[in-house]
């Protein structure tokens, strides 16, 4: 059974590291400069340009390779920030209980029900500055609630365990109990939360950039799709331009989903089946 579980995790991890390697060695792997004019715009895929050329005659494969960098950075940063917000709010609510919990839980519930993408769009459209940072902030700010809810529930069950009570009696400070006693005991939950957050981030980033809320001069998978849509790539039969970034996003997303799934199965024996 353990071998089966690991298969999902191994596939997920391999995909993830595959993209990390691509991002790291982009200058060596990309056949052309992603910003350079190298041929006739909207060229179909050929042996020289495997995915064809975009509206300004730039090599799409090279853009895809360079785009991995920013897409990955934004995804991981957003995932980390989102998980941090979920953790802080979830653990505070769960540990302190009482009025603090009531207030924080209400805030969590409000953010759970206010629809995410429309909220992101409304906030992003007011921000004048276009770039990576607003995207990271907007996604983290709007999508932390589901994680916080799960973490709050877990903290709540842990609060009354004996080892926590023991620390309280010996006079440990709350902050120390939360970060050194409770948090290490939720690592699997936190990491599964992190992978879900990264998945949300990757798709959210692509959606916002597709709508033109990103820095459209930067190269990411999302902005590639934005330009493809806005220069009617498909009507010019330039299918590589649309196909490639989408598959890249989906593959990276799937790797996060697989990692989350494998952690779920590890920690919840019921899901393993008989």
């Amino acid at each position: 059974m353990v071998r089966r579980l690991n298969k999902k995790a191994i596939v997920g991890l391999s995909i993830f590291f595959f993209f990390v390697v691509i991002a790291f060695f982009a200058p060596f792997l990309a056949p052309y400069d992603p910003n350079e004019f190298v041929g006739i715009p909207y060229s179909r895929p050929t042996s020289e340009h495997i995915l064809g050329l975009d509206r300004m005659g730039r090599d799409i494969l090279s853009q895809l390779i360079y785009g991995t960098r920013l897409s990955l950075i934004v995804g991981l940063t957003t995932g980390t920030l989102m998980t941090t917000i979920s953790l802080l709010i979830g653990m505070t609510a769960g540990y302190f209980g009482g009025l603090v919990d009531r207030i924080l839980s209400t805030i969590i519930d409000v953010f759970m029900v206010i629809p995410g993408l429309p909220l992101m769009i409304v906030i992003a459209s007011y921000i004048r500055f276009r770039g990576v940072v607003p995207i990271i902030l907007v996604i983290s700010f709007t999508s932390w609630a589901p994680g916080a809810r799960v973490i709050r529930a877990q903290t709540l069950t842990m609060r009354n365990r004996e080892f926590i009570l023991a620390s309280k009696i010996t006079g440990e400070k709350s902050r120390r109990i939360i970060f050194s006693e409770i948090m290490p005991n939720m690592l699997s939950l936190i990491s599964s939360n992190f992978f879900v957050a990264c998945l949300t981030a990757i798709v959210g980033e692509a959606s916002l950039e597709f709508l033109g809320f990103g820095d459209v001069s930067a190269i990411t998978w999302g902005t590639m799709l934005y330009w493809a849509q806005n220069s009617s790539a498909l009507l010019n039969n330039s299918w590589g331009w649309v196909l490639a970034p989408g598959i890249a996003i989906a593959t990276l997303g799937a790797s996060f989903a697989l990692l989350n799934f494998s952690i779920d199965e590890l920690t919840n024996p019921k899901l393993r089946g008989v």
Partner: protein
Amino acid sequence: MKYLREKIVFFIIALLSALIINFVLPRLMPGDPAERILLKMGGDIQPEAVEAMRIALGVDKETPILKQFFSYLKNTLTFNFGISYSYYPVPVKDLILDALPWTIGLVGISTLISFVLGTALGIRAGWNRNKPIDSFVTISSLIIRGFPYFWLALILLYVFGFLLNLFPLSNAYSTHEFLKGWKFFGSVIYHGFLPGLTLVLASLGTWILTMRNNMVSVLSEDFILVAEAKGLKDKDIMNKYAARNALLPSVTSFGLSLGYIVGGALLTEIVFSYPGIGYLMYKGVTSQDYPLMQAIFFIISLSVLIANFMLDFVYMFLDPRTRG
């Protein structure tokens, strides 16, 4: 009735939060909304014009902020969203009323199909857990769910609309001929097929996975073992014992997803230029039509909140514990 009271209070708090976001955002951002609008309309701007616009928008400096907020509340709650900048002088309310039926029809039908199909597949996958059919269904749901759904829309549009020329590339009904009755209905179905297919495919994975995991969870319970020991037919155990108990969380999610009918198809509508709420919001965004955008955000939030509240209400009848 403590339960009901709590739910009503939460509904009001959540609605207020959405309203406050709408009210605060434009005031947080640098620049004067009145000048922004007038600049968009072009030409020389006289100070008097800016002042008049400020008063029209309710953001003039003389009115205290609290008063501004209350008049904003009153207007929004009576569905008086002001006048659209980009479709000047059409009221925002009319634009939304025109777009709403298209979205509700398209997304409503797609949600229903996806729920039924996904749940049925999830039951089969969960029952045959760890067999090839389960792995196949689970893995493919994971993969489909990973695709950004607007990208799925682009690909479907390209393959079926452009390459094979089977379906129209945009709009919700034929715009170059006047159709009536059944012919019009047919044209609506024909135009809605691809966007609908996108929505079904995009959400199918989630329904399958939810149901599959519920099934696997229920199947490890003792009463399933008892049913097997009694020698009941596999089909009966699957449908009458396991699926019935595993269904409740899925039904809950289905109730919640009804709230997303209004706001759940933003990007799909944009790709297919489908004249619904999502496409309208996109047009509002690209032309910086803030009243339109905010009104749509409010409508979307309102529908989610109402669905949420209805579900809580239904639970009150289903679950005796909530009645206290």
